[in-house]
């Protein structure tokens, strides 16, 4: 057998790489602590952001964004648009807020509940879509019996025969061409769930970066350019179907702005959420809205920012922020693993090797292990120096690999 040294190095590197992932993984699973952020909602009565926090023993406390403590009852009363069911039962619901009469229907139709996570954007997709009838004769949506693809062209595939429905495909293709859509499409987003109050079809970015709205109305194709301002470069669109049909969804652009795309008399009006910079690849967004104010939360590695926005103009009324709470795993990694390997990322559904570098201070662990490797018995001086340098580079994972992989006849 030739190349014994090469074989030794190959196996050594393999075991090291496995250990770079296999050692920190159980440590991460054991030490990761829950990230506890307070629940925050804007009080239309107090005109402040209200915090409901729970400590590690699940003791709940209430305060406003100026630090004033509230009792549970005071807190509930300060958020009538959040707790309206309970306050109505108790007979404590105010008749009006800010001069607007409280109407149960208004409360229901103007409610916004939206959540965006980067893994929604960074995920593999089948790239097949279902075109529901947007004005169904019945109250609920019905399955159309076909699906469509929209990459290099639009094609409807009949599920019964698994063949392209040429006639329907041509009708939609002609409609898209007439609207000025240029294939290939960069992406298409729509809400595929059939359990929704109505359907607004799909929003698709064409080859030139223009955003188009595509849907089916009374069996006929509907395609329209949203004609967004050229300064808006869409990177993602999260469609929602709010009860009041005010807007079509949330639009994320390349410069870090978030918009809702409003319906405006047959036209499309982007309205920016006044929430500062937003990175759709790393930031999570939560919107809880009522007819007066929207409470928006933006969470990333640094912490969570909260904004109260005027529901009409989406301009900022108030803001607060909470830094990211310390995580036990971060502290553990910083002490033991200056470098480690992982394959999952909470911001992405894709699996890929990701090398993490923690703190430079963790290199002390490498140094200590490297020194110990100088005293491993039954090894030549040259091998000890190699082992020490290897351990300095790969840390505990490298040391374990050196001890596990057979050297010579051990």
């Amino acid at each position: 057998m030739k190349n014994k040294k090469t074989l030794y190095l190959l196996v050594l590197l393999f075991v090291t790489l496995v250990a770079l992932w296999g050692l920190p993984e159980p440590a991460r699973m054991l030490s990761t602590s829950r990230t506890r952020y307070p629940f925050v909602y804007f009080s239309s009565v107090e005109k402040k952001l209200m915090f409901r926090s729970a400590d590690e023993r699940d003791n709940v406390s209430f305060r406003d964004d100026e630090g004033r403590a509230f009792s549970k009852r005071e807190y509930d009363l300060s958020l009538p648009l959040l707790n309206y069911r309970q306050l109505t039962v108790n007979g404590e619901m105010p008749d009006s807020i800010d001069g607007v009469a409280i109407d149960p229907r208004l409360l229901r139709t103007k409610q916004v509940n939206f959540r965006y996570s980067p893994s929604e954007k960074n995920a593999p997709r089948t790239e097949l879509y279902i075109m529901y009838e947007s004005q169904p004769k019945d109250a609920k949506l019905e399955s159309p019996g076909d699906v469509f693809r929209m990459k290099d062209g639009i094609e409807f595939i009949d599920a019964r025969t698994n063949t392209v429905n040429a006639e329907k495909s041509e009708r939609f293709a002609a409609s898209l061409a007439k609207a000025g859509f240029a294939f290939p499409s960069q992406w298409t987003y729509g809400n595929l769930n059939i359990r929704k109050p109505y359907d607004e079809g799909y929003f698709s970015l064409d080859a030139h970066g223009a955003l188009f709205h595509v849907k089916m109305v009374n069996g006929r194709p509907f395609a329209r350019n949203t004609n967004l301002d050229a300064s808006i470069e869409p990177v993602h669109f999260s469609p929602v179907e709010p009860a009041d049909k005010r807007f079509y969804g949330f639009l994320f652009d390349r410069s870090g702005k978030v918009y809702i795309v409003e319906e405006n008399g047959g036209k499309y009006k982007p309205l920016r959420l006044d929430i500062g910079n937003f990175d759709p690849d790393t930031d999570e967004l939560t919107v809880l809205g009522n007819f007066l104010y929207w409470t928006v939360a933006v969470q990333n590695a640094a912490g969570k920012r909260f904004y109260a926005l005027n529901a009409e103009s989406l301009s900022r009324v108030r803001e607060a922020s909470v830094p990211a709470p310390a995580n036990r795993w971060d502290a553990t990694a910083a002490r033991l693993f200056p470098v480690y390997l992982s394959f999952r990322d909470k911001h992405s559904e894709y699996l890929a090797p990701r090398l993490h570098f923690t703190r430079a201070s963790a290199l002390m662990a490498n140094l200590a292990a490297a020194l110990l490797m100088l005293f491993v018995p039954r090894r030549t001086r040259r091998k000890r120096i190699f082992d020490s340098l290897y351990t300095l580079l790969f840390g505990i994972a490298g040391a374990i690999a050196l001890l596990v992989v057979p050297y010579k006849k051990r």
Partner: protein
Amino acid sequence: MYRSIIYKEWIKTRTATGFIVLAFAAAAIHSFMKIAEDLRLSGAAACWELVIQKDPAMFPLFEYLPAIAGVLAALAQYVPELQSKRLKLTLHLPLKEDAILLAMSAYGTAVVTLVTAFFGAVLLWGLSANFPAEIAGASFRRLLPGFMAGPSAYFLASWICLEPRWSRRVLNFIPGALALSLFFMRAKSGAFCPLVPWLGGFMAAAFFFVFQSTARFKDGVQ
């Protein structure tokens, strides 16, 4: 001489190979019967919509089957070599030791790869008859890591099997099992795509691990 080595390997592994082919065929028939049942009971449109929205595994039996086949092939090939130290005789055949081991390893790799590739093609062909190309493609991307686990499991099992010392076998098993578990991480169809080149690189490296075990055997490690 190579033909003789291949024939020797065939004699050792024909029962296991027959069992592997039978298991793959049974799993394929069962999978197609299940899909046909779903299509008949729920209708094609509902099935397509379910697949698009929920991304279920179309061939769950095939997630682990290639890896099991890989381990079985390695055991069938190398356990007889370890009995009464027949490997010593094998390595004394009139060819270079590396060439003998390369031929043996290439035979096992070919068996596992050809069986998984053939049944992979059958599954995709069958799926394409009832589903659009996008769904067949997503299923292929979902099956790919499991199918790559087949040859990987063969390489790792050969490495462990030919290691002459039991304690070392256990030490080889731990990183081997951890590495193999990477092929079975729960994820959406297509989520593995960025990882596939890395897994391919690992497979290429793992092919040579068996040479290390054989070198130790030749060195007389007990």
